[in-house]
């Protein structure tokens, strides 16, 4: 048995997966409660209790949680103060990077080869730590430029901080193997900010499971669509931020299991989130996701949010139909205050008055929808409004009856949304196709990404998807169980891991960055790209909580270091990963 629970903004959903003898899993139970934002733990436990009532707790293989805890804490900025310690060296003005509630800039300096150019000053460190102490700060983030090439200065500051008894200390070099000091600083700051809340949460959940005599391992879902064992999440809780959209993409994967290139639409009340699989593999955000408007090094799945959803307010501005970005309430046909795209679908007969959304039955009133759309007709400048592709001739002749007028408005609304989403999709594809490359080989090999199918989930998804897909020229599929797709995504996802091996044989160092290893290469040993690759593979396997998940090498580069016409060494970098995927497959009947 596997349990997946997704804490969303409105609902907390859960699924219990049970396998038959052939290890085919199926959804045995689902559960849904309203999320109590003040007490996420309670919402989780209510779902958990309902899923396991009467079940054999010893048979639970794992529990996977996707929570909004990190996201909420950061969005609402309700966290304890963070003291930031920067070791920037020369470069960009470090003024830009003082995100902390208190900030100190130290005068150490590590260069791009990982060489210490300028040592730290002990008295500077102590002075900063004393200042933070008296300001009542207990969370620290210590970040150095090029610390992933040589973490010694970050570690030196950490040592001082431990002597000063600071409780939670985030060091920049452990967060990602990627270069980018400003992102490292933002990531470390956010990581430090959520660490205390995260640790409290872990303690509370552990205790609750103990009380229920559940011994199964517990995992959290990360925003890259992979899971992480609870204990390991302590060092880098920031990885669990934004897991909701990742859960939805992994859920789509689990419930459809397509191996080709598809778009994923999650059509909600206010927004439509667009994601993408390339040959069945979810695509990452380049460089890392943004948190609270700041770019970070947190690896996350590619999603783009378009402010168009089923309940978006529809207005006419200067003769043109405008959908969103606000949501004033439910659809007019459900007693809401403004016309919405859902009303448009009702008027067009694409949704029935008695509808089933995510297992909930919903009652609409088509007449109300019609009345809500009708007043827009006269405000629209039909000359400039791009005509939607409607039933033959519908917009050619002047509509006479109120019903015909409402239909024409509804057509216009759906056309606006599909044009906007279509444009957004084009934009996503072209930005991925034109992503910067740095070798002639890659530049000449650049290929086009052409998905042919839209997979969707969410509320009135079915009707919307059909409309969008046919207007934009895609085939469509609406996944079943979409009401609990996020929980299914959490339950089925496998762990993800990344390992970056950076070796500079001229300097005589190798870094296994995500494992926190910075060590000398044995003098005289000839370290090769093959060995770097082996190391990357080995350390990825070693850190994985499950065996037999394939590790892939995603990047490999090697440069000869030549000084005065002589090769003095090599600089190599190899990245290995376990990419997001499914640990558990649902039986065919479930897809």
């Amino acid at each position, binding site marked *: 048995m596997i349990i997946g629970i997704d804490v969303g903004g409105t609902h907390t959903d859960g699924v219990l997966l049970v396998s038959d003898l052939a290890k085919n899993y199926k959804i045995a139970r689902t559960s849904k409660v309203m999320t109590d934002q003040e007490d996420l733990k309670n919402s989780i436990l209510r779902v958990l209790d309902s899923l396991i009532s009467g079940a054999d707790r010893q048979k639970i293989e794992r529990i996977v949680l996707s929570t909004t805890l990190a996201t909420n804490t950061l969005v609402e900025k309700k966290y304890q103060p963070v*003291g930031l310690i920067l070791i920037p060296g020369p470069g*960009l003005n470090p003024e830009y990077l003082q995100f902390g509630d208190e900030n100190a800039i130290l005068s150490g300096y590590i260069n*791009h080869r990982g060489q210490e150019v300028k040592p730290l000053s002990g008295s500077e460190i102590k002075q900063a730590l004393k200042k933070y102490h008296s300001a009542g700060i207990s969370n620290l983030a210590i970040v150095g430029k090029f610390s992933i090439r040589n973490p010694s200065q970050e570690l030196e500051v950490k040592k001082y901080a431990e002597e000063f008894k600071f409780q939670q200390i985030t060091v920049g070099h452990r967060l990602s193997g990627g*270069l980018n000091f400003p992102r490292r600083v933002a990531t470390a700051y956010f990581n430090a900010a959520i660490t205390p809340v995260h640790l409290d949460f872990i303690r509370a959940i552990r205790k609750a499971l103990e009380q229920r005599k559940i011994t199964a391992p517990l995992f959290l879902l990360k925003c890259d669509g992979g899971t992480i064992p609870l204990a390991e999440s302590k060092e880098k809780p920031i990885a669990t931020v934004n897991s909701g959209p990742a859960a939805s993409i992994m859920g789509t994967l689990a419930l459809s299991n397509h191996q080709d290139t598809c778009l994923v639409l999650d059509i909600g009340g206010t927004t439509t989130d667009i994601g993408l699989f390339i040959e069945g593999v979810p695509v990452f955000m380049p460089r890392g996701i943004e948190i609270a408007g700041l770019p970070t090094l947190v690896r996350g799945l590619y999603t783009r949010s378009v402010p168009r959803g089923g309940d978006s307010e529809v207005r006419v501005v200067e003769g043109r139909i405008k959908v969103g970005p606000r949501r004033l309430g439910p659809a007019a046909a459900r007693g809401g205050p403004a016309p919405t795209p859902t009303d448009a679908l009702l008027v067009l007969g694409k949704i029935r008055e008695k509808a089933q959304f995510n297992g909930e039955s919903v009652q609409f009133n088509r007449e109300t929808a019609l009345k809500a759309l009708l007043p827009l007709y006269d405000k629209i400048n039909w000359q400039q409004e791009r005509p939607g592709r409607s039933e033959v001739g519908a917009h050619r002749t002047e509509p006479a009856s109120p019903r015909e007028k409402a239909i024409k408005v509804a057509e216009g609304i759906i056309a606006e949304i599909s044009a906007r989403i279509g444009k957004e999709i084009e934009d996503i594809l072209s930005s991925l196709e034109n992503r910067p490359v*740095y070798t002639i080989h890659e530049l*000449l090999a650049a290929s086009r990404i052409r998905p042919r199918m839209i997979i969707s989930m969410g509320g009135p998804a079915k009707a919307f998807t059909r409309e969008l897909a046919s207007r934009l020229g895609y085939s469509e599929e609406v996944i079943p169980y979409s009401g609990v797709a996020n929980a299914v995504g959490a339950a089925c996802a496998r762990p993800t891991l990344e390992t970056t091996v950076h070796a500079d044989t001229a300097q005589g160092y190798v870094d296994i960055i995500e494992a926190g290893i910075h060590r000398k290469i044995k003098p005289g040993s000839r370290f090769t790209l093959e060995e770097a690759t082996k190391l990357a593979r080995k350390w990825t396997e070693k850190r994985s909580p499950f065996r037999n998940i394939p590790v892939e090498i995603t990047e490999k580069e090697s440069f000869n270091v030549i000084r005065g016409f002589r090769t003095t060494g090599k600089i190599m970098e190899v990245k290995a990963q376990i990419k997001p995927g499914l640990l558990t497959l649902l039986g065919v009947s479930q897809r």
Partner: protein
Amino acid sequence: MSATGKNETPAKRERQLSSRKPTARNSLGLIFFPAFDWAISPTHPEREERLLYTRDQVFEEGLMDIENIYEFNPGRAGKKDVQRVHICVPDVEDVATDSHLISAGGAIRAAELVLEKKVDKAFAIVRPPGHHAFRVVHGTRGFCNINNEAIMVERIRATHPKMKIAFVDTDAHHADGTQEIFYHDPNILHISLHQDGRTLFPGSGFTDELGGPGAFARTLNIPLPPGTSDEGLHYVLDNLVLPVLEDFKPELVINAAGQDNHYSDPLTNMQISAQGYAELNAKLNPDIAILQGGYSIESALPYINVGLILAMAGLDYSYIHEPDYNPADLKQSPAITETIKKTVEELQQLWQKRSRVDLEEFYDFTGRFSTREKRIYYDTDGISELQQETVKVCPDCPGYLIISSTAQHSSSFRQNRILAVSIPRLTCDRCHEEARVFFAEIEEKEKERFDYIYLQDLKDDTYFRY
């Protein structure tokens, strides 16, 4: 900032985070293409490793994330783009590989971005460089095969034929190729600041190289003594380059941004620092910058390029300096200062009286044609070229060129003799007709004497080889 972390409010944090994003004052397009899979040869300065440390520094500084800085891939220059500038012997494919076409494509992308107003400025950090490639190309010289910036200019002029464009080439080596290509072009002002040619390749770039009779003082050369520092460079900039640009009023300023003036460069003897470069760029305020040479790949390029990017974007570059930067070590001697002042004074005077010079006397020609002989040495490929270039001097237009060239390959005893007629885009109808008649004649009569005969007709946009 409050000292008592406890009363931090979410609203204050909102401000704190949102105010921290730097925004470029000038939107900047970056074409960063290090060509990590290409080298002239494994240990050549123009090798895979050249922009490795620059990439590390640029990425670690997070410059690509700065609001208003955008990254683009280069395109690939087409055959016609190359033919508009070069007469490649025997043909474009023999001289320019993908790496060269992509490097030129990076420059073209920079120009497109600026002219289409997608960005205010663009910087092409591409390799290999181009400024030593002449109009006739027999091989590689000064690590250059085709002239990226000249190819870019001809692409620009395909849609803006009369645009006035200024080059300021700050590479330590004289930009002899670009100078030669536009030597007779009155719409291009080409200024090169470089280490004195008596002490460095290519051995040219003296104050008396001033452009052809139809483009007098459109070529200016400022040779700088070895040991020149930021002080000397900025003296030239303030007292000569900027006032000349002020007078010329270009519609587009291009900085050929060579970075081998740096005090740590292994191939030159100059004393410029990253700060000096960045400040130069800020003062010059170019629309487009294109990387040229610069082979102190570890100690200079990472810092100079970050400085240039910030300066072009209008951001604070004052925190950038090299690990071993010490201004006291980089002071230039009074003798150098004196020499630079004299050179600047000479050129100032010349610039002032540029419209009053007797060109026939200056160029020592009578009638309608002016001829010069050139010996061009291809250091990289070991080729000696002897060239005779005759320009038709026309009061109404830039005239046309007749070029005969013999190239001796030192390695293979191979010799190529070519003859070419080159017709600029803005040549008047009479000269155009005359050049075409001349070409038809030589095509008939001179076939036997030359290996190849070329027509480069920009006015008709047609290019032939026989």
